[in-house]
């Protein structure tokens, strides 16, 4: 039995090392990986960095709740959820979600569910820093809609 990992950290993560945690567990038939990265195709030109702020007292509890809800809904063997905070440059990794299950349907659905809830319920905020300005990223209606499909 592989333990869940739910972490908020400044440092980068290594997807190979995280995947390797599931090595040797023959109950796991499917692992789905999602990595969110800093992209630079915003209306705001010349993105230098993304600043990620969070609400430290609440963040881990919110992430644990999202993972617990996913595990109540699908037969998951293990979940890894790592979210970075602090300054991040374009192409850097922001978030990792690994969902492991006996079945791929559960692994796919739970992975999407966790990201949809994370994007609407977990207290993180992005700010885009350019040469001339820094602007808080607005929440997207489409994220709200994506979450509602699970209700």
């Amino acid at each position, binding site marked *: 039995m592989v333990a869940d990992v739910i972490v908020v950290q400044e440092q980068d993560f290594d997807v190979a090392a995280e995947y390797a945690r599931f090595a040797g567990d023959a109950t796991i038939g499917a692992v789905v990986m999602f990595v969110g990265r800093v992209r630079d195709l915003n209306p705001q030109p010349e993105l230098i960095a993304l600043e990620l702020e969070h*609400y430290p007292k*609440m963040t881990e*509890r919110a992430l644990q709740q999202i993972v617990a809800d996913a595990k109540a809904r699908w037969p998951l063997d293990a979940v890894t959820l790592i*979210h970075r905070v602090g300054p991040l440059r374009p192409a850097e990794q922001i978030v990792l979600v690994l969902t492991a299950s006996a079945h791929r349907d559960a692994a796919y659905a739970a992975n999407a569910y966790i990201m949809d809830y994370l994007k609407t319920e977990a*207290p993180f905020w992005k700010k885009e820093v350019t040469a001339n300005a820094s602007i808080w990223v607005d929440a997207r209606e489409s994220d709200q809609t994506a979450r509602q499909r699970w209700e």
Partner: protein
Amino acid sequence: MISVVYFARLKEVLGLAEEQLPQSPATVADLIDLLAARGGVWAEELAGGKVFRVAINQEMARLSDAIPEGAEVAIFPPVTGG
């Protein structure tokens, strides 16, 4: 008494990260009315039709939720992580 914490854009616009309120508003809606009555940016952000979220003791809350004595209430913009 309750404490109120602000995050992200709201923290910057209001110019405040945290404060203690001697009053204990009964509900989130009462707290928002109290803060909006300060006028200026407070009214603009909290009573001007802008969207914000509230958490009571680190759990997402609604306007109608009761605020327990000594609670930490957080007010912040819709989240944008991931």
